[in-house]
C-alpha cells in the first residue's frame, strides 16, 4: 500500500512540477486532507513524493517551454531551453532525469550516514538550544531567499504574529480571535499556504493572462551521448554534494542549491562562455543540486524536528496532524516512519525515472492545456482542500483572505517563504522561549551561557549585521544585498 502512495505522490508531484502556477507547497496542502484516512507513514511517503516529484517535473517545463514549473528549476531554463532550441531537447531531458536520480541516490546515502550521529547530538538540546536554532533558521532563510533582507524580516515578524492567533498554550488566554470560535485553535497551516501560494498565483495569472508556447520539435534520443556523459559527470557529482549540504542548512533548500551549483560550475568550467548557450553542464549541475537538496532537507526535520524550508514546514504540519512529533526521539519511537520515508525516497526516485523518460510526450501534451481551463480547476482544488480539513467555511474564508494578502505581497515584492516558516516555527519558538525563561527564572542570559545556543544566536546576529556592512561603509548603499551581487 505504501508503494501505491509513493507512486501517487511522485505522479502528482511530476504533474504539479510540469504545470506552472501550482507549486509543490500548494499541491501538498491540497492533498493533505486526503491523507487523513491513511497511516502517518503512508501520508508522509505520499507528501514527500509530491515534493521530489515536483523537483523532477519542473525541469520538463524549463527545458521545453522556458518556464520553470517551480522555483528550483529556474537555472535549468538557461541552458536547457537553449539545448532544446538546438534540437537537443532529448539529451537535456535525459541528463536531467538521470542526474536527478543520481543526485537523489547520493542524497539518500548522505542522509543515512548523517542522521544517526545528528540524532545523538540533538539529544543534548534543551529549550534554549531549540529556540536559538529556530532563530538561526529564520535568519538564514531571510538572508538567503529574499532580495531585501529588511522586507524578509518584516514578513518573518508578520508570520510570528499570525502564529500567535488562538489560545496561548501556557496561560490559556485567547489572542486575536475576535470572538470567532474557529480561531481559538489558531489559523490553520493549509488555508494559509493555499491562499499564499495557490490562490494568489491564480489571481496574478488572471490579471496577466499568461501565454505559453510549447516547443514543437519532436523530442527524441533521450539518452545522452558518451561525450555528454563525460562533460556531465563532474557537474553531477559537485551538484549532488553541494545540494545535499545546502539542503541540510536551516533556511536552505533546493532553490538556493540550484543557483549556487550553477554559479560554481560556471566558475570551474574551462568554457564558461558556453553557459547560457546550451551547455549540458548547466543542466546537469542544478538538476542534481535541487534533487539532493530535496533529500537533505529531510534531515533537520526528521532528526531535530525543525523544518528547514516551507515544504518541510508542511510535512511537519502533516506529522503533527497524525500525532507524530518529529525530533531526536522519532528514530526510536517511530522507526517505521523514519526508515519508511528513507526507503520510499529510493523507490520514489526509481519510479520518477520510469515516469519521466517514457512519459515525457504525455507531460508535453499536458502543457498544451490552456490556462483558462486550468485555473478554475486549481481554484476548485483549493476550495475543497481548505474546506475538508475541518468542514468549515471559515477556513475557506481564511484561505481567500490570505490569497489576497499573497497577491498584494507578490505585487510589492514581499516573499511568502519567510512568513510561512515563521508562522510554523512561531508557536514552537514561543514555547521554547517561555520554557527557557521558566528554567532560568526570567533571565535571558540562559541563551548566551549555553555554548550551542550562544553559537546559534551569534551566527544569527552576524547574518543580520552582514547586509548592513556596505551601507555602514557607504551610507545610502543598498540594504538589498542581492541587488549588489
Amino acid at each position, binding site marked *: 500500500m505504501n508503494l501505491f502512495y509513493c507512486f501517487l505522490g511522485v505522479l502528482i508531484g511530476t504533474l504539479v512540477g510540469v504545470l506552472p502556477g501550482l507549486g509543490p507547497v500548494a499541491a501538498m496542502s491540497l492533498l493533505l486532507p486526503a491523507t487523513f484516512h491513511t497511516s502517518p507513514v503512508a501520508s508522509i511517503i505520499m507528501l514527500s513524493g509530491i515534493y521530489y516529484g515536483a523537483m523532477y517535473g519542473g525541469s520538463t517545463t524549463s527545458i521545453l517551454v522556458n518556464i520553470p514549473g517551480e522555483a528550483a528549476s529556474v537555472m535549468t531554463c538557461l541552458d536547457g531551453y537553449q539545448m532544446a532550441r538546438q534540437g537537443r531537447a532529448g539529451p537535456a531531458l535525459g541528463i536531467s532525469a538521470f542526474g536527478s536520480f543520481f543526485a537523489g541516490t547520493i542524497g539518500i546515502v548522505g542522509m543515512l550516514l548523517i542522521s544517526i550521529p545528528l540524532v545523538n547530538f540533538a539529544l543534548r538540546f534543551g529549550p534554549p538550544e531549540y529556540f536559538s536554532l529556530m532563530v538561526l533558521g529564520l535568519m538564514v532563510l531571510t538572508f538567503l531567499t529574499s532580495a531585501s533582507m529588511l522586507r524578509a*524580516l518584516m514578513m518573518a515578524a508578520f508570520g510570528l504574529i499570525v502564529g500567535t492567533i488562538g489560545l496561548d498554550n501556557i496561560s490559556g488566554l485567547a489572542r*486575536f480571535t475576535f470572538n470567532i470560535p474557529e480561531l481559538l485553535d489558531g489559523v490553520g497551516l493549509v488555508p494559509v499556504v493555499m491562499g499564499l501560494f495557490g490562490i494568489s498565483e491564480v489571481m496574478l495569472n*488572471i*490579471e496577466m*493572462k499568461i501565454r505559453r508556447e510549447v516547443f514543437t520539435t519532436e523530442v527524441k534520443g533521450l539518452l545522452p551521448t558518451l561525450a555528454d556523459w563525460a562533460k556531465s559527470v563532474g557537474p553531477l557529482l559537485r551538484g549532488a554534494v553541494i545540494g545535499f549540504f545546502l539542503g541540510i542548512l536551516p533556511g536552505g533548500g533546493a532553490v538556493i542549491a540550484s543557483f549556487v551549483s550553477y554559479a560554481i560550475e560556471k566558475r570551474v568550467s574551462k568554457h564558461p562562455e558556453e553557459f547560457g548557450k546550451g551547455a549540458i553542464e548547466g543542466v546537469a549541475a542544478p538538476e542534481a543540486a535541487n534533487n539532493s537538496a530535496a533529500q537533505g532537507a529531510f534531515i533537520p526535520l526528521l532528526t531535530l524536528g525543525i523544518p528547514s524550508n516551507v515544504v518541510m514546514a508542511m510535512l511537519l504540519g502533516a506529522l503533527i496532524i497524525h500525532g507524530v512529533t518529529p525530533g531526536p526521539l522519532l528514530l526510536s519511537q517511530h522507526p517505521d516512519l523514519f526508515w519508511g520515508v528513507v526507503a520510499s525516497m529510493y523507490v520514489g526516485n526509481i519510479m520518477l525515472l520510469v515516469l519521466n523518460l517514457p512519459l515525457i510526450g504525455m507531460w508535453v501534451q499536458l502543457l498544451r492545456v490552456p490556462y483558462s481551463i486550468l485555473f478554475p480547476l486549481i481554484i476548485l482544488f483549493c476550495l475543497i482542500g481548505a474546506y*475538508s480539513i475541518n468542514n468549515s*467555511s471559515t477556513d475557506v474564508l481564511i484561505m*481567500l483572505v490570505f490569497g489576497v494578502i499573497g497577491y498584494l505581497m507578490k505585487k510589492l515584492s514581499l516573499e511568502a517563504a519567510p512568513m510561512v516558516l515563521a508562522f510554523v516555527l512561531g508557536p514552537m519558538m514561543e514555547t521554547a522561549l517561555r520554557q527557557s525563561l521558566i528554567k532560568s527564572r526570567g533571565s535571558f542570559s540562559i541563551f548566551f551561557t549555553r555554548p550551542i545556543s550562544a553559537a546559534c544566536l551569534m551566527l544569527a546576529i552576524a547574518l543580520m549585521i552582514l547586509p548592513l556592512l556596505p551601507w555602514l561603509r557607504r551610507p545610502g548603499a543598498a540594504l538589498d544585498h542581492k541587488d549588489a551581487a
Partner: protein
Amino acid sequence: MPFLSGLTLGLLALADLIYGMANRWKHEKADREIWPSIHRGKLFFTLVLLFFYTLLFNRLGFIISTIPLLFFLFRLMEPRPWWAALIASVLTTGLFYLGFKVGLDSQLPPGPFGF
C-alpha cells in the same frame, strides 16, 4: 511574544518606509507596472464570486453551488459558448464530487438535498 513581534514588525516597516523614501528616485518601477489595468475587472469579479461561493456553499451544497461557480470561471478568460461552459461545469463538478467525496471520502457540504 505578540507584542515583541508587533513591535519588531512596526520598527522594520518604519525602517523600510524611511529607506524607500530616501531611495525613491532609484526605483523607477512605476505604479502602472505593479498594478496593470488589464483584466482588473476580471480579477475583482473572481474574488467577489469566490466570497459569495464561500458564503453560500454550506447552505446550497457542493454540487448546486459549484456548477454556477465553474460556469462563470470557465467563461472568464476566454469567450466560450454558454452551453460548452455549462457542460464542462457539470462534468467537472461531477468528477470532483466522485473523486473527493466517493473516492477519497473527503467532507463536502451536503446542502438541503444531501449533495
